[in-house]
């Protein structure tokens, strides 16, 4: 699928990824700390981080806000049944909304599961989420053949993604 990108990662890249998966060290010279950990110079680390940012292996560098503790207590996974030929257009429209944090096309499993577009909608509470979902439904018009909001009722497990192994 994306073999081109990950084949360009060498062992040192992987060590840098492992060293920064949980975050950038909060010290004056973070790249020096990483460099010491992975065994190269700070300049080399910065060069590789820059390259990974340019080729999309790193999406971005910065703060990842926690919606929940910042007052967005309503977080709904919304799912939509959109005609396949319209899913890109609709997905891009939804993904650009400021209260949507992720939007993906996923496969249907008919007849039990007819939805092909997923979007995480954030609001202060459930009623705000519902208003925003209505806004999306209005924007989609006839392209929306059905939708639902799935709220999470419990976190059953949460561990970090095993992003890379430095072997």
């Amino acid at each position, binding site marked *: *699928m*994306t073999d081109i990108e*990950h084949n360009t*990662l060498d062992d040192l890249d992987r060590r840098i*990824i492992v060293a920064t*998966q949980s*975050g*950038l060290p*909060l*010290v*004056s010279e973070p*790249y*020096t700390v990483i460099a010491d950990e992975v065994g190269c110079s700070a300049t080399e680390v910065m060069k590789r*981080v820059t390259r*990974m*940012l340019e080729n*999309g*292996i*790193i*999406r*971005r*560098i*910065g*703060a*990842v*806000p926690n919606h929940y*503790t*910042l*007052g967005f207590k309503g977080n709904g*996974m919304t799912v939509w049944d959109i005609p396949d030929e319209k*899913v*890109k257009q609709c*997905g891009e429209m939804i*993904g650009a909304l*400021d209260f949507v*944090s*992720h*939007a*993906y*096309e*996923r*496969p249907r*499993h008919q007849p039990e*599961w007819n939805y092909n577009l997923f979007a995480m909608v*954030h609001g202060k509470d459930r009623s705000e989420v519902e208003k925003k979902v209505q806004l999306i439904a209005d924007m989609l018009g006839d392209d929306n053949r059905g939708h639902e909001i*799935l*709220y*999470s*009722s*419990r*976190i*059953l*497990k*949460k*561990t970090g*993604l*095993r*992003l*890379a*192994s430095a072997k």
Partner: protein
Amino acid sequence: MSLELDEIDRAILNTYQGGFPICERPYQAAAEQLGITETDLINRLQGMLDKKQLSRFGPMYHAERLGGGLSLCAMRIAEEDYDRVNDQVNAFPEVAHNYARDHAFNMWFVLATESPDRIPTVLQEIEQASGYRVYNMPKKQEFFIGLKFEV
């Protein structure tokens, strides 16, 4: 909203959800932009992490591009089997997050494997262990995700 954030915290969050500088002293460079000191920026970031206002700070990796397998999976489990299946699913180290959701599809988990070809194998193992079907819903397309969460 954003209860304990003061104006400077907000400026940090709104300015640096991406685009954090890559240089020898990035906190110094970013602090200058914000009109605060390097120490103040580091302390505030640490504070927001401690209070869990930030999930993390640093590079955000594009998981699929690291060569591993990643998929969202869902199950429809009868109430009386839920706890048993939950234990069985969570026992797989490949299950990274797992959420109960209010729906007939009442269990949703992310599977992260070291290689993409492990996904179908693990799915099958979960089905065999639990006796329930696993609906595999890997990402087919991702739509633009802006840097926009304003606090």
